[in-house]
């Protein structure tokens, strides 16, 4: 698909612009704000636009809000991408195995998927983090735990149709091992629709991470936007900017990821429609 087509809709352009900005912020954070973003940088509760060394002000302990915002982008993106990658990996493997093997294996794997789908995803994440203890890896695992079912179902549906195709039959005839067929012939072709789901998963993962941090279940040694909002909540009436600024960042990030994802899907659909 050509880039021109991808950027045809204004929504997609906006989405990619926001996403690009976000990635730039995340990459530049250690350059622009070296050192610990949780370090105390100035007078506590400095308001935004008062002191140009601390453009967005400071929180209750005197930590730089802008530095927190930049480093928080890293956490949000890292968690979002890692959780999405993990859930797509697990989901597509489970879906492929279920769809390709069929029979009892299919039944068992799909009932397990059902079981995970019936529990609200956020509760599942909450439970895991509160049992194992909050750290970045656990948060990623907790989000992936509730997000892998979507990719699993889609992958299985795709595999069910692909496995009846002629090239799969011929692979069987030439004596390829079923595992090889599943993962070299079937999975790559089942992947595109699953990948289309990734933007939704990334957006949901960013929100889940923020919600966990807001509830005090994020990694306390890292800045996260959710944690910043939670910190600001105690002074919501007297210093609302502490919650509003990371809140806006969160909205923009989720919006950007979602719009960019939509753009990709639309671009792909347009290509298929033309073809």
């Amino acid at each position, binding site marked *: 698909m050509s880039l021109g087509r991808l950027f045809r809709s204004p929504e997609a352009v906006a989405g990619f612009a926001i996403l690009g900005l976000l990635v730039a912020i995340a990459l530049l954070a250690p350059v622009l704000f070296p050192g*610990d973003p*949780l*370090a*105390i940088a100035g007078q*506590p509760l400095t308001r935004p636009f008062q002191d140009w060394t601390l453009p967005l002000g400071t929180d*209750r*302990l*005197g930590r730089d809000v802008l530095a927190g915002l930049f480093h928080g982008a890293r956490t949000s993106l890292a968690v979002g991408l890692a959780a999405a990658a993990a859930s797509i990996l697990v989901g597509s493997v489970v879906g492929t195995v279920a769809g390709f093997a069929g029979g009892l294996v299919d039944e068992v794997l799909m009932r397990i998927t059902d079981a995970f789908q019936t529990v609200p995803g956020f509760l599942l994440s909450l439970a895991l983090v*509160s049992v194992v*203890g*909050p750290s970045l890896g656990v948060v990623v695992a907790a989000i992936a735990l509730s997000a892998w079912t979507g990719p699993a179902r889609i992958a299985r549906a795709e595999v069910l149709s692909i496995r009846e195709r002629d090239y799969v039959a011929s692979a069987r005839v030439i004596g390829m091992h079923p595992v090889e067929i599943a993962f070299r012939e079937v999975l790559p072709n089942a992947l595109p629709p699953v990948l289309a789901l990734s933007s939704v998963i990334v957006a949901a993962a960013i929100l889940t991470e923020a919600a966990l941090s807001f509830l*005090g*279940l994020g990694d*306390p*040694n890292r800045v996260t936007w959710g944690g910043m909002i939670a910190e600001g*909540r*105690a*002074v*919501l*009436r*007297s*210093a609302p900017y502490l919650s509003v600024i990371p809140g806006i960042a969160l909205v923009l990030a989720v919006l950007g990821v979602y719009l960019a994802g939509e753009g990709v899907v639309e671009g792909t659909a347009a290509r298929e429609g033309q073809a």
Partner: protein
Amino acid sequence: MAGIEISRRKVLAGSAFLLASTALPSIGWTQAKKGGRLVVAADSEPRNLNPAIVASNGVFFVASKVVEPLAEASFDGEDGLAPRLATSWEGSADGLSVTFKLREGVTWHDGKPFSSADVAFSALNVWKPLQNLGRVVFKNLEAVETPDANTAVFKFSKPTPLQLIKNALPALTSVVPKHVYEGSDIAANPANNAPVGTGPFKFAEHKAGEYYRLERYDKYWGDNAPALDEIIYRVLPDRAAAAGALEAEEIQLAAFSAVPLADLKRISKVAGIKVISEGYEALTYQLVVEINHRRKELADAKVRQAIAHAIDKDFVVKTIFLGYAKPATGIVPQNDKQFYAPDVPTYGFDVAKANALLDEAGYAKKDDGKRFALKLLPAPYFNETKQFGDYLRQALAAVGIDAELVNNDSAAHQKAVYADHAFDLAIAPPVFRGDPAISTTILVQSGIPDGVPFSNQGGYKNDELDGLIDKAAETLDPSARIELYKEFQKKVAADLPLINVAEWGFITVARDTVKNVSNNPRWAVSNWADTYVET
């Protein structure tokens, strides 16, 4: 005779009423002292509401209106006490017995008479074996003799200072009814969730997640008490909600800093609302860094002193407590007039000195600027303990100690620190309860079994300090005992088994219509018999 007394009381009350009405003509005849419903914010719902077993402020906040102690703290009473179920107390010269005269004409909420048998039962079967604090103070209590229904004589196997017993009366001596608890598993008795007492209010109901309701006990022994008809504790676990509820007049009082400190400046300007910092003098909370001495770095006094120098106590008081606290100098808070020793070694904020001490201890900075790594567990009970965790991590980073914060919920935190010892540094808010022997010396003493919360679980052992604690526990002369504790404070400040950072009392925010608020040093956890709502 009784009839005459009552009529005299009525005359006095009547004249007081007249005086009040002339003093405040605008309120005129609508002013009524009796009656009224007080709605207060409650931020937690304790599982066990029996103050004789769980002597903690969360329990007292509700249960102290229902179950009474032998005496309550007082601003102007003798020994700082006001009599409740006991009217007088006297110790023997050998320190082996204390005689309590008990109040006459007191009844339990179920109608049965209160007697010395209830006190004996509570002391021997509840305070001594089951209560978190009573286990320490009453450990040598052997028997309670009851020569008559209104006399209880406590017999100790070792000399026990009367000073300690007196200081322990408000928090440790909640009397529960023998007839309700006898012959049952006391810890599992249903009365622990619906307490029966002698206090001015009866326990009426508890709706989980919604409210507790207490109602007036008409046969209460106090004159013209209680003033209120009803107390409702509305469960508002969200601290931000209490301020809004006060402004909307949904609640009339929020104690224990339920309104966040950051909101006080704003809410103090709202008409009809007052911010009160009195009424917590006997409930001083201490912000403390607990140290696990099993870590070889932290077993070195120089490292502990360096950590003390790295903490800017004034910053903590100003920024985290917004001025509603005091920097601590040692293990006894400054507002304790009996025991506080000002002349102890202190550790001013001095990063260079902290760095020098760490170098001296042999932990030089490595290439990445760090000396060693630590696990830091802030207690989750208060916003302030959590925020201090964030601050301490930064303060330690400034001297090259890499602290990793570990956040847990209350249950997991207590298990990690006090049972599993899975911490290097922890932040705790212990309470000073008027006598070091009640809940303070156990922060230092060795040989405490695993799992006892707010005690020395850091593996610290100092024979000299243990000796001082033991000696003070059986020193009968009050001034000699005070001298021993002053010595104790100096030694603690020199060796730093733990680091005291700040000490604070809480803030009550109430509507102006609530009267007789904060009129004793443990007001929030006292019986509120004279509190009323002006209508």
